């Protein structure tokens, strides 16, 4: 019944204003009292009005009605309900006659006639006002959509990265109600390039604002941090306290080293990118929660070696989750299958879009933003390959990640799993990842036990480096100084005969697991470097 109150309030407010500007008419305002009346839909007075048309003398009414009491308190004597199509849309309330006489039958008839004429007019006025409000709302939404689209488009990259040996293509088509898709390229000082794609839940201006914030946070984090996992971790922690409830951001952060073709990535719950190569298409997995959901999240990091001819496709769910007229979804398997087509780069984008158009049919209203970014590795840049004296081709190693573990029994498991995660996508060849894991676990155990004497305040530092040729893991402890006596090579027969301790397998295992083992030490630190060649270099 709020409509009633508003209607009368508005009428009275108009009158009061008039009264202020025309003081000589104050006599009128003294007899018009504003009644703030909220009538509950189930108030007995409403059904009474509905069943008993015409003027009602409320002094004679015997109803348990809150509205009735309020009217009486306000000094109302007669009520003329304004009814339209059985609905109470307003009331004319009268106090006692100023002449102190009772209302006559003529007065009542006049009031009844007035109500009959006024009710439809009031109803029309209400409808007009309602329509105006709706039109205003529609205009506001259109305006919002425009603003959201402007924010979105202003912040998307104006140009594509030009990288020697690579081709990058991008496509972005917002839905009518703009979603929160974004993509971004960042150029790091060391020559690496970050490829970012993301999607904010929700649509319109709120999504656009969160997208703009996320983008700024990503830029700031990428300036200081070089690992994709650390960047996402930082952005998540900054975003989480401020992001509106029920909103979050999915985001993939991939770092390309153009010199080596290594692509290091972490994923905050975004659709898995695909790598299409000569031997088929694979999904690039890395675990991580969307940004802004929970504080203190960590993000798995993976590194893959791109080979000439490979294309990586980053995309948003607007593609995979588009629907055909019969309700069928485009689907991730279809996207993956389409990558078997020979089209690459911009041609691949065109091909995917034409397949999407065929699938959704004519007259499809795009449900969500569609964003596609492709990174195609065309050829290895020649100038970065150095030829050594012995004719062996080598490239410089880059640090993928560095982490520390406290020296506590059992922590070698963490070292092993973390390294496996980091190099899991590299082309080590069958079974060789297991060898690296064993070598890392043994070297970490030695570092914790012999180097750091299981003092948990002395951490073991592990650095993982990769190049296009090999993987190196450098494990450092605080056991510097002169080298210890080199232990004897384990001889199983001697051990079984009790001539050697059954132990002493660690270093022996390490040497047999890796292609190269190097030990360096200074006064304080001792480092063991484990190198495993990639399959292509074996």
């Amino acid at each position, binding site marked *: 019944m709020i409509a009633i109150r508003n209607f009368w309030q508005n009428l009275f407010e108009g009158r009061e204003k008039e009264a202020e500007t025309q003081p000589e008419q104050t006599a009128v305002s003294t007899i018009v009292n504003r009644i703030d009346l909220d009538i509950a839909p189930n108030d007995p007075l409403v059904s009474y009005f509905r069943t008993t048309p015409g003027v009602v003398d409320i002094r004679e009414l015997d109803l348990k009605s809150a509205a009735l009491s309020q009217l009486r308190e306000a000094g109302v004597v007669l009520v003329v309900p304004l009814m339209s199509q059985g609905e109470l849309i307003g009331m004319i309330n009268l106090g006692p006659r100023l002449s102190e006489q009772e209302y006559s039958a003529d007065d009542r008839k006049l009031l009844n006639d007035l109500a009959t004429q006024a009710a439809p007019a009031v109803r029309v006025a209400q409808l007009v006002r309602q329509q105006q409000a709706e039109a205003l709302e529609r205009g506001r939404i259109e305006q919002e959509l425009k603003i959201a689209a402007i924010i979105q488009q202003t912040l998307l990259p104006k140009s594509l990265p030009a990288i020697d040996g690579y081709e990058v293509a991008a496509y972005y088509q917002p839905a009518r109600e703009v979603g929160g898709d974004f993509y971004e390229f960042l150029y790091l000082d060391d020559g690496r390039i970050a490829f970012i794609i993301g999607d904010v839940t929700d649509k319109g201006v709120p999504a656009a604002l969160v997208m703009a914030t996320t983008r700024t946070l990503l830029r700031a984090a990428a300036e200081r941090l070089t690992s994709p996992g650390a960047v996402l971790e930082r952005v998540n922690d900054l975003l989480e306290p401020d992001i509106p409830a029920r909103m979050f951001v999915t985001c993939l952060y991939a770092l390309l080293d153009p010199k080596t073709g290594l692509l290091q990535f972490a994923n905050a719950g975004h659709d898995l990118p695909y790598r299409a190569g000569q031997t088929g298409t694979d999904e690039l997995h890395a675990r991580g929660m969307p940004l802004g959901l929970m504080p203190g999240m960590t993000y798995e990091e993976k590194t893959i070696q791109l080979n000439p001819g490979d294309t990586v496709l980053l995309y948003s769910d607007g593609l995979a989750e588009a629907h055909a007229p019969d309700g069928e979804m485009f689907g991730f398997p279809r996207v993956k299958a389409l990558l078997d087509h020979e089209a690459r780069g911009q041609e691949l984008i065109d091909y995917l879009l034409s397949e999407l158009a065929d699938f959704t049919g004519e007259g499809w209203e795009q449900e969500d933003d569609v964003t596609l970014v492709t990174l195609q590795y065309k050829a290895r840049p020649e100038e970065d390959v150095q030829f050594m004296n012995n004719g062996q081709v080598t490239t410089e190693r880059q640090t993928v990640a560095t982490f520390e573990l406290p020296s506590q029994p059992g922590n070698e498991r963490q070292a092993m799993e973390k390294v496996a995660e980091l190099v899991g996508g590299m082309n080590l060849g069958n079974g060789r990842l297991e060898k690296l894991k064993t070598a890392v676990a043994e070297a970490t155990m030695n570092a914790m036990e012999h180097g750091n004497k299981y003092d948990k305040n002395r951490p073991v530092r592990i650095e993982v480096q990769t190049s296009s040729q090999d993987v190196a893991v450098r494990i450092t402890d605080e056991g510097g100084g002169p080298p210890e006596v080199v232990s004897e090579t384990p001889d*199983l027969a001697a051990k079984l005969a009790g001539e050697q301790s059954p132990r002493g397998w660690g270093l022996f295992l390490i040497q047999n697991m890796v292609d190269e083992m190097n030990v360096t030490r200074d006064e304080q630190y001792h480092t063991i470097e484990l190198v495993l060649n990639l399959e292509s270099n074996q």
Partner: protein
Amino acid sequence: MTVREKEFSATVRQPNGMAIIDLRGEINAFAEASLHAAYDRALDSDPATIILNFSDVAYINSTGIALIVGLLAQARKTHRRLITCGLSEHYQEIFHITRLSDFMTIYTDEASALAGAMSNK
């Protein structure tokens, strides 16, 4: 990231006077007591051959290798044969590198290990 310690356990089965020790989890320093206890239980039936079943073992480190060397030495002293089954390819290779495979026959699965134990009884 946290990696949970997968606790080690070893149980013994003794079908037809043979002994199978089913190893589960990770064979490292923490496994020593349970491994020796299981080995002692396996001796109850005075078996000529003891099968170490590695099917549910995901990780063996150098300390674990040392424990197996210890068991092998003990078995050889009492003229028992120790054989293995269920080792992953990676650990089969480690058994070759360490020459453990020269002293303990490696069978791929339990059925072939049992057949091998029977034929050499």
